[in-house]
Protein backbone atom coordinates (compact mmCIF):
# COMPACT_ATOMS: atom_id res chain seq x y z
CA UNK A 1 0.00 0.00 0.00
CA UNK A 2 1.47 3.29 -1.09
CA UNK A 3 0.12 6.80 -1.04
CA UNK A 4 -0.37 6.57 -4.82
CA UNK A 5 -3.15 4.06 -4.11
CA UNK A 6 -5.19 7.03 -2.99
CA UNK A 7 -5.69 7.95 -6.65
CA UNK A 8 -7.60 4.68 -7.15
CA UNK A 9 -9.51 5.41 -3.94
CA UNK A 10 -10.50 8.85 -5.20
CA UNK A 11 -11.72 7.33 -8.48
CA UNK A 12 -13.82 4.75 -6.63
CA UNK A 13 -15.27 7.37 -4.25
CA UNK A 14 -16.12 9.68 -7.13
CA UNK A 15 -17.72 6.84 -9.12
CA UNK A 16 -19.90 5.86 -6.16
CA UNK A 17 -20.78 9.52 -5.68
CA UNK A 18 -21.76 10.23 -9.29
CA UNK A 19 -23.71 7.00 -9.75
CA UNK A 20 -25.65 7.67 -6.52
CA UNK A 21 -26.31 11.31 -7.43
CA UNK A 22 -27.64 10.43 -10.91
CA UNK A 23 -29.93 7.58 -9.86
CA UNK A 24 -30.77 9.21 -6.54
CA UNK A 25 -31.91 12.43 -8.22
CA UNK A 26 -34.13 10.40 -10.53
CA UNK A 27 -35.63 8.51 -7.58
CA UNK A 28 -36.02 11.76 -5.68
CA UNK A 29 -37.93 13.37 -8.54
CA UNK A 30 -40.15 10.31 -8.91
CA UNK A 31 -40.84 10.14 -5.17
CA UNK A 32 -41.53 13.90 -5.01
CA UNK A 33 -44.00 13.56 -7.89
CA UNK A 34 -45.58 10.56 -6.17
CA UNK A 35 -45.91 12.42 -2.87
CA UNK A 36 -47.91 15.11 -4.68
CA UNK A 37 -50.12 12.72 -6.61
CA UNK A 38 -53.90 12.48 -6.20
CA UNK A 39 -53.88 8.88 -4.98
CA UNK A 40 -53.70 8.70 -1.18
CA UNK A 41 -52.01 5.26 -1.32
CA UNK A 42 -49.20 6.59 -3.51
CA UNK A 43 -48.79 9.62 -1.26
CA UNK A 44 -48.49 7.40 1.81
CA UNK A 45 -46.03 5.15 0.03
CA UNK A 46 -43.77 8.11 -0.78
CA UNK A 47 -44.10 9.51 2.77
CA UNK A 48 -43.23 6.09 4.21
CA UNK A 49 -40.12 5.80 2.04
CA UNK A 50 -38.93 9.26 3.10
CA UNK A 51 -39.49 8.72 6.83
CA UNK A 52 -37.76 5.32 6.79
CA UNK A 53 -34.70 6.83 5.07
CA UNK A 54 -34.62 9.77 7.46
CA UNK A 55 -34.98 7.52 10.50
CA UNK A 56 -32.52 4.71 9.77
CA UNK A 57 -28.71 5.14 9.81
CA UNK A 58 -27.01 5.17 6.40
CA UNK A 59 -24.56 2.54 7.60
CA UNK A 60 -27.41 0.15 8.40
CA UNK A 61 -28.91 0.65 4.93
CA UNK A 62 -25.54 -0.16 3.35
CA UNK A 63 -25.28 -3.31 5.49
CA UNK A 64 -28.82 -4.38 4.63
CA UNK A 65 -28.23 -3.99 0.90
CA UNK A 66 -24.86 -5.76 0.99
CA UNK A 67 -25.60 -8.67 3.34
CA UNK A 68 -29.27 -8.85 2.37
CA UNK A 69 -28.30 -8.90 -1.31
CA UNK A 70 -25.69 -11.56 -0.67
CA UNK A 71 -28.20 -13.71 1.23
CA UNK A 72 -30.78 -13.23 -1.53
CA UNK A 73 -28.36 -14.07 -4.34
CA UNK A 74 -27.03 -17.08 -2.45
CA UNK A 75 -30.57 -18.37 -1.92
CA UNK A 76 -31.30 -18.02 -5.65
CA UNK A 77 -27.99 -19.51 -6.81
CA UNK A 78 -28.00 -22.26 -4.17
CA UNK A 79 -24.39 -21.49 -3.17
CA UNK A 80 -22.56 -18.57 -1.53
CA UNK A 81 -22.53 -15.63 -3.94
CA UNK A 82 -21.29 -12.28 -2.68
CA UNK A 83 -22.93 -9.16 -4.05
CA UNK A 84 -20.59 -6.75 -5.81
CA UNK A 85 -19.47 -4.21 -3.20
CA UNK A 86 -19.66 -1.32 -5.64
CA UNK A 87 -23.20 -2.19 -6.72
CA UNK A 88 -24.34 -2.64 -3.12
CA UNK A 89 -22.69 0.58 -1.91
CA UNK A 90 -23.97 2.67 -4.81
CA UNK A 91 -27.47 1.17 -4.54
CA UNK A 92 -27.64 1.88 -0.80
CA UNK A 93 -26.45 5.47 -1.18
CA UNK A 94 -28.85 5.95 -4.11
CA UNK A 95 -31.76 4.92 -1.90
CA UNK A 96 -30.57 7.29 0.85
CA UNK A 97 -29.96 10.19 -1.52
CA UNK A 98 -33.33 9.65 -3.20
CA UNK A 99 -35.19 9.87 0.10
CA UNK A 100 -33.65 13.18 1.11
CA UNK A 101 -33.84 14.57 -2.43
CA UNK A 102 -37.57 13.73 -2.52
CA UNK A 103 -38.18 15.99 0.48
CA UNK A 104 -36.16 18.82 -1.06
CA UNK A 105 -37.89 18.53 -4.45
CA UNK A 106 -41.32 18.28 -2.82
CA UNK A 107 -40.74 21.51 -0.89
CA UNK A 108 -39.48 23.27 -4.00
CA UNK A 109 -42.42 22.10 -6.12
CA UNK A 110 -44.88 23.30 -3.49
CA UNK A 111 -43.17 26.70 -3.52
CA UNK A 112 -44.03 27.19 -7.20
CA UNK A 113 -47.20 29.29 -7.55
CA UNK A 114 -50.24 27.16 -8.40
CA UNK A 115 -51.01 29.44 -11.34
CA UNK A 116 -48.06 27.98 -13.25
CA UNK A 117 -49.51 24.45 -13.26
CA UNK A 118 -52.96 25.80 -13.99
CA UNK A 119 -51.63 27.84 -16.93
CA UNK A 120 -49.90 24.72 -18.28
CA UNK A 121 -53.19 22.81 -17.92
CA UNK A 122 -55.07 25.64 -19.66
CA UNK A 123 -52.58 25.49 -22.55
CA UNK A 124 -53.40 21.82 -22.87
CA UNK A 125 -49.87 20.58 -22.17
CA UNK A 126 -49.72 16.82 -21.61
CA UNK A 127 -48.54 15.65 -18.19
CA UNK A 128 -44.95 14.96 -19.22
CA UNK A 129 -44.54 18.41 -20.80
CA UNK A 130 -46.18 20.03 -17.81
CA UNK A 131 -43.54 18.48 -15.58
CA UNK A 132 -40.49 18.79 -17.80
CA UNK A 133 -41.19 22.24 -19.29
CA UNK A 134 -43.02 24.09 -16.53
CA UNK A 135 -42.55 22.60 -13.07
CA UNK A 136 -39.02 21.15 -13.08
CA UNK A 137 -37.25 24.20 -14.60
CA UNK A 138 -38.81 26.47 -11.97
CA UNK A 139 -38.26 24.01 -9.16
CA UNK A 140 -34.51 23.46 -9.75
CA UNK A 141 -33.24 26.93 -8.68
CA UNK A 142 -35.40 26.75 -5.56
CA UNK A 143 -34.08 23.30 -4.67
CA UNK A 144 -30.43 24.08 -5.50
CA UNK A 145 -29.10 25.25 -2.07
CA UNK A 146 -30.52 22.25 -0.17
CA UNK A 147 -29.57 19.91 -3.03
CA UNK A 148 -25.98 21.17 -2.83
CA UNK A 149 -25.85 20.43 0.89
CA UNK A 150 -27.20 16.97 0.21
CA UNK A 151 -24.49 16.29 -2.36
CA UNK A 152 -21.82 17.37 0.14
CA UNK A 153 -23.34 15.01 2.74
CA UNK A 154 -23.23 12.25 0.16
CA UNK A 155 -19.49 12.74 -0.42
CA UNK A 156 -18.98 12.18 3.31
CA UNK A 157 -21.39 9.23 3.38
CA UNK A 158 -19.41 7.45 0.66
CA UNK A 159 -16.79 6.76 3.35
CA UNK A 160 -19.27 4.27 4.85
CA UNK A 161 -19.13 1.96 1.82
CA UNK A 162 -15.57 1.03 2.82
CA UNK A 163 -17.27 -1.18 5.45
CA UNK A 164 -18.40 -3.63 2.76
CA UNK A 165 -14.89 -3.79 1.28
CA UNK A 166 -15.02 -1.28 -1.55
CA UNK A 167 -11.53 0.26 -2.01
CA UNK A 168 -12.55 3.89 -1.71
CA UNK A 169 -10.44 6.62 -0.08
CA UNK A 170 -11.37 5.43 3.40
CA UNK A 171 -10.50 1.80 2.67
CA UNK A 172 -7.16 2.72 1.08
CA UNK A 173 -6.34 4.76 4.20
CA UNK A 174 -7.41 1.91 6.49
CA UNK A 175 -5.41 -0.75 4.68
CA UNK A 176 -2.42 1.57 4.30
CA UNK A 177 -2.56 2.49 7.97
CA UNK A 178 -2.60 -1.17 8.96
CA UNK A 179 0.07 -2.51 6.61
CA UNK A 180 2.53 0.35 7.21
CA UNK A 181 1.72 0.73 10.90
CA UNK A 182 1.26 4.45 10.29
CA UNK A 183 -2.38 5.30 10.92
CA UNK A 184 -1.87 9.01 11.56
CA UNK A 185 -0.45 10.09 8.17
CA UNK A 186 -2.84 7.83 6.24
CA UNK A 187 -5.98 9.07 7.97
CA UNK A 188 -4.75 12.67 7.81
CA UNK A 189 -4.24 12.22 4.07
CA UNK A 190 -7.76 10.80 3.76
CA UNK A 191 -9.17 13.76 5.72
CA UNK A 192 -7.35 16.20 3.45
CA UNK A 193 -8.70 14.48 0.34
CA UNK A 194 -12.28 14.46 1.65
CA UNK A 195 -11.95 18.11 2.68
CA UNK A 196 -10.71 18.97 -0.82
CA UNK A 197 -13.63 17.09 -2.41
CA UNK A 198 -16.28 18.73 -0.21
CA UNK A 199 -14.62 22.14 -0.79
CA UNK A 200 -14.76 21.66 -4.55
CA UNK A 201 -18.43 20.67 -4.28
CA UNK A 202 -19.18 23.67 -2.05
CA UNK A 203 -17.47 26.03 -4.49
CA UNK A 204 -19.23 24.55 -7.53
CA UNK A 205 -22.64 24.84 -5.90
CA UNK A 206 -21.95 28.43 -4.80
CA UNK A 207 -21.14 29.31 -8.42
CA UNK A 208 -24.21 27.41 -9.70
CA UNK A 209 -26.45 29.11 -7.16
CA UNK A 210 -25.21 32.54 -8.18
CA UNK A 211 -25.88 31.66 -11.80
CA UNK A 212 -29.40 30.39 -11.20
CA UNK A 213 -30.45 32.85 -8.53
CA UNK A 214 -33.56 34.13 -10.27
CA UNK A 215 -34.60 36.20 -7.28
CA UNK A 216 -31.94 38.66 -8.40
CA UNK A 217 -33.45 38.78 -11.86
CA UNK A 218 -37.04 39.36 -10.87
CA UNK A 219 -36.99 43.14 -10.88
Amino acid at each position, binding site marked *: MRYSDFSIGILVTLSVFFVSVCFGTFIGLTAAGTSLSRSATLRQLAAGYVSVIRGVPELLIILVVFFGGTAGLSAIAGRYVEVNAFAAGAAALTIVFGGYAAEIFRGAIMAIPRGQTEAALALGLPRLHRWMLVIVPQMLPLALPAYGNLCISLIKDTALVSIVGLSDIMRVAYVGAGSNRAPLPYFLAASAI*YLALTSIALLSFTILERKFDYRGRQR
Partner: protein
Amino acid sequence: MNLDAFREAIMLLPTGLVLTAGLTVAPLLVAFIVSLPLALVRTAKGTLSSSIVLGYTYIFRGTPLMVQLFLIYYGLGQLALVRNSFLWPVFREPLWCALIAFTLNSAAHTTEIFRGGFLAVPKGPIEAAKALGLTRLQTLCFVTYPLMIRTVFPAYINEVIGMLKATSVASTITILEVTGLSRQLVSATFAPYEVFVVAGAIYLATTLSITWLARAIERGLSPIVRH
Protein backbone atom coordinates in the same frame (compact mmCIF):
# COMPACT_ATOMS: atom_id res chain seq x y z
CA MET B 1 -37.68 -16.40 7.20
CA ASN B 2 -35.48 -17.45 10.08
CA LEU B 3 -37.78 -17.07 13.09
CA ASP B 4 -35.10 -17.99 15.62
CA ALA B 5 -32.79 -15.22 14.40
CA PHE B 6 -35.72 -12.82 14.41
CA ARG B 7 -36.62 -13.68 17.99
CA GLU B 8 -33.00 -13.47 19.06
CA ALA B 9 -32.68 -10.04 17.41
CA ILE B 10 -35.78 -8.76 19.20
CA MET B 11 -34.37 -9.95 22.52
CA LEU B 12 -30.78 -8.81 21.99
CA LEU B 13 -30.79 -5.58 19.99
CA PRO B 14 -32.78 -3.34 22.37
CA THR B 15 -30.02 -3.88 24.95
CA GLY B 16 -27.75 -1.90 22.61
CA LEU B 17 -30.05 1.10 22.93
CA VAL B 18 -28.39 2.09 26.21
CA LEU B 19 -25.04 2.59 24.45
CA THR B 20 -26.67 4.21 21.42
CA ALA B 21 -28.53 6.64 23.67
CA GLY B 22 -25.41 7.43 25.69
CA LEU B 23 -23.35 7.97 22.53
CA THR B 24 -26.09 10.33 21.30
CA VAL B 25 -26.94 12.30 24.42
CA ALA B 26 -23.52 12.86 26.02
CA PRO B 27 -21.87 14.37 22.90
CA LEU B 28 -25.00 16.43 22.18
CA LEU B 29 -25.02 17.89 25.69
CA VAL B 30 -21.34 18.83 25.68
CA ALA B 31 -21.60 20.15 22.13
CA PHE B 32 -24.63 22.25 23.05
CA ILE B 33 -22.80 23.95 25.90
CA VAL B 34 -19.59 24.47 23.94
CA SER B 35 -21.40 25.75 20.85
CA LEU B 36 -23.09 28.70 22.53
CA PRO B 37 -19.89 30.72 23.08
CA LEU B 38 -18.31 29.37 19.87
CA ALA B 39 -21.29 30.56 17.82
CA LEU B 40 -21.06 33.99 19.43
CA VAL B 41 -17.38 34.15 18.49
CA ARG B 42 -18.30 33.08 14.96
CA THR B 43 -20.79 35.95 14.55
CA ALA B 44 -18.02 38.52 15.11
CA LYS B 45 -16.79 38.78 11.55
CA GLY B 46 -13.20 39.51 10.62
CA THR B 47 -11.60 38.68 13.96
CA LEU B 48 -8.86 36.10 14.36
CA SER B 49 -10.85 34.04 16.87
CA SER B 50 -13.80 33.96 14.46
CA SER B 51 -11.53 32.61 11.70
CA ILE B 52 -10.14 29.96 14.03
CA VAL B 53 -13.64 28.75 14.92
CA LEU B 54 -14.57 28.82 11.23
CA GLY B 55 -11.50 26.68 10.47
CA TYR B 56 -12.60 24.17 13.11
CA THR B 57 -16.22 23.93 11.91
CA TYR B 58 -15.13 23.84 8.25
CA ILE B 59 -12.76 20.91 8.78
CA PHE B 60 -15.13 18.90 10.98
CA ARG B 61 -18.12 19.51 8.72
CA GLY B 62 -16.14 18.84 5.57
CA THR B 63 -14.77 15.41 6.43
CA PRO B 64 -16.60 12.14 7.14
CA LEU B 65 -17.25 11.33 10.80
CA MET B 66 -15.70 7.91 10.22
CA VAL B 67 -12.35 9.47 9.26
CA GLN B 68 -12.45 11.65 12.37
CA LEU B 69 -13.22 8.61 14.51
CA PHE B 70 -10.39 6.56 12.98
CA LEU B 71 -7.97 9.47 13.32
CA ILE B 72 -8.67 9.67 17.03
CA TYR B 73 -8.88 5.93 17.72
CA TYR B 74 -6.09 4.58 15.49
CA GLY B 75 -4.17 7.75 14.64
CA LEU B 76 -3.48 9.35 18.02
CA GLY B 77 -2.20 6.08 19.47
CA GLN B 78 0.72 6.24 17.03
CA LEU B 79 2.09 9.32 18.77
CA ALA B 80 4.51 8.45 21.57
CA LEU B 81 3.47 11.74 23.15
CA VAL B 82 -0.08 10.45 23.58
CA ARG B 83 0.94 6.90 24.37
CA ASN B 84 3.18 7.95 27.25
CA SER B 85 0.90 10.61 28.69
CA PHE B 86 -1.88 10.37 31.23
CA LEU B 87 -4.30 10.60 28.29
CA TRP B 88 -3.47 7.13 27.02
CA PRO B 89 -6.09 5.30 29.15
CA VAL B 90 -8.65 7.58 27.47
CA PHE B 91 -7.49 7.23 23.85
CA ARG B 92 -7.01 3.47 24.26
CA GLU B 93 -10.71 2.95 24.91
CA PRO B 94 -12.95 2.85 21.82
CA LEU B 95 -15.89 4.25 23.81
CA TRP B 96 -13.98 7.36 24.89
CA CYS B 97 -12.67 7.87 21.36
CA ALA B 98 -16.20 7.65 19.98
CA LEU B 99 -17.48 10.12 22.57
CA ILE B 100 -14.66 12.56 21.75
CA ALA B 101 -15.09 12.25 17.98
CA PHE B 102 -18.88 12.62 18.17
CA THR B 103 -18.60 15.63 20.47
CA LEU B 104 -16.10 17.40 18.21
CA ASN B 105 -18.25 16.65 15.17
CA SER B 106 -21.52 17.65 16.77
CA ALA B 107 -20.06 20.86 18.22
CA ALA B 108 -18.94 21.90 14.73
CA HIS B 109 -22.44 21.37 13.32
CA THR B 110 -24.20 22.93 16.33
CA THR B 111 -21.94 26.00 16.26
CA GLU B 112 -22.94 26.72 12.67
CA ILE B 113 -26.64 26.15 13.47
CA PHE B 114 -26.47 28.53 16.43
CA ARG B 115 -24.53 31.07 14.43
CA GLY B 116 -27.35 31.17 11.88
CA GLY B 117 -29.80 31.59 14.75
CA PHE B 118 -27.87 34.49 16.28
CA LEU B 119 -27.76 36.26 12.94
CA ALA B 120 -31.53 35.79 12.56
CA VAL B 121 -32.38 37.42 15.91
CA PRO B 122 -34.08 40.74 15.08
CA LYS B 123 -32.48 43.99 16.27
CA GLY B 124 -35.67 45.34 17.90
CA PRO B 125 -35.77 43.17 21.06
CA ILE B 126 -32.04 43.75 21.66
CA GLU B 127 -32.51 47.52 21.38
CA ALA B 128 -35.53 47.26 23.67
CA ALA B 129 -33.40 45.40 26.22
CA LYS B 130 -30.74 48.09 25.98
CA ALA B 131 -33.41 50.78 26.44
CA LEU B 132 -34.64 48.97 29.55
CA GLY B 133 -31.14 49.19 30.97
CA LEU B 134 -30.29 45.45 30.83
CA THR B 135 -26.59 44.69 30.95
CA ARG B 136 -24.96 42.91 28.00
CA LEU B 137 -24.95 39.61 29.85
CA GLN B 138 -28.60 39.98 30.81
CA THR B 139 -29.53 40.82 27.23
CA LEU B 140 -27.65 37.75 26.07
CA CYS B 141 -29.26 35.40 28.61
CA PHE B 142 -32.82 36.69 28.62
CA VAL B 143 -33.30 38.05 25.09
CA THR B 144 -30.79 36.81 22.51
CA TYR B 145 -30.39 33.17 23.67
CA PRO B 146 -34.11 32.37 23.99
CA LEU B 147 -34.91 33.97 20.65
CA MET B 148 -32.01 32.18 18.99
CA ILE B 149 -33.00 28.78 20.44
CA ARG B 150 -36.55 29.18 19.16
CA THR B 151 -35.35 30.02 15.66
CA VAL B 152 -32.90 27.13 15.39
CA PHE B 153 -35.08 24.52 17.10
CA PRO B 154 -36.11 22.59 13.94
CA ALA B 155 -32.53 22.64 12.62
CA TYR B 156 -31.24 21.52 16.01
CA ILE B 157 -33.65 18.59 16.09
CA ASN B 158 -32.25 17.52 12.73
CA GLU B 159 -28.83 17.58 14.34
CA VAL B 160 -30.14 15.41 17.21
CA ILE B 161 -31.53 12.85 14.77
CA GLY B 162 -28.36 13.06 12.69
CA MET B 163 -26.29 12.36 15.78
CA LEU B 164 -28.46 9.38 16.73
CA LYS B 165 -27.99 7.90 13.26
CA ALA B 166 -24.27 8.72 13.28
CA THR B 167 -23.72 6.64 16.43
CA SER B 168 -23.99 3.55 14.20
CA VAL B 169 -20.49 4.45 12.94
CA ALA B 170 -19.20 3.57 16.42
CA SER B 171 -19.76 -0.08 15.46
CA THR B 172 -16.71 0.23 13.15
CA ILE B 173 -14.41 0.51 16.19
CA THR B 174 -15.88 -2.55 17.92
CA ILE B 175 -18.48 -0.73 20.03
CA LEU B 176 -21.53 -2.94 20.52
CA GLU B 177 -24.39 -0.47 20.25
CA VAL B 178 -27.49 -1.37 18.21
CA THR B 179 -25.66 -1.57 14.86
CA GLY B 180 -22.63 -3.29 16.41
CA LEU B 181 -24.82 -5.92 18.06
CA SER B 182 -26.76 -6.53 14.86
CA ARG B 183 -23.56 -6.93 12.83
CA GLN B 184 -22.33 -9.45 15.37
CA LEU B 185 -25.64 -11.31 15.27
CA VAL B 186 -25.67 -11.36 11.46
CA SER B 187 -22.22 -12.91 11.31
CA ALA B 188 -23.36 -15.55 13.83
CA THR B 189 -26.71 -16.44 12.24
CA PHE B 190 -26.29 -15.14 8.66
CA ALA B 191 -29.88 -13.93 8.71
CA PRO B 192 -29.28 -10.34 7.56
CA TYR B 193 -32.89 -9.42 6.75
CA GLU B 194 -34.36 -10.54 10.07
CA VAL B 195 -31.66 -8.89 12.19
CA PHE B 196 -31.26 -5.64 10.25
CA VAL B 197 -35.02 -5.12 9.98
CA VAL B 198 -35.27 -5.27 13.77
CA ALA B 199 -32.31 -2.87 14.10
CA GLY B 200 -33.89 -0.52 11.55
CA ALA B 201 -37.20 -0.63 13.40
CA ILE B 202 -35.47 0.30 16.66
CA TYR B 203 -33.78 3.31 15.06
CA LEU B 204 -36.97 4.32 13.26
CA ALA B 205 -39.04 4.13 16.45
CA THR B 206 -36.47 6.26 18.28
CA THR B 207 -36.20 8.92 15.60
CA LEU B 208 -39.98 9.10 15.17
CA SER B 209 -40.40 9.54 18.94
CA ILE B 210 -37.86 12.37 18.87
CA THR B 211 -39.72 13.98 15.97
CA TRP B 212 -43.05 13.80 17.80
CA LEU B 213 -41.56 15.09 21.04
CA ALA B 214 -39.88 17.92 19.14
CA ARG B 215 -43.16 18.87 17.50
CA ALA B 216 -44.83 19.11 20.92
CA ILE B 217 -42.01 21.24 22.31
CA GLU B 218 -42.01 23.42 19.23
CA ARG B 219 -45.70 24.10 19.73
CA GLY B 220 -44.92 25.14 23.29
CA LEU B 221 -42.07 27.41 22.17
CA SER B 222 -44.18 29.12 19.54
CA PRO B 223 -45.19 32.68 20.43
CA ILE B 224 -48.60 32.21 18.81
CA VAL B 225 -51.01 30.23 21.00
CA ARG B 226 -52.57 27.49 18.89
CA HIS B 227 -55.93 25.96 19.69
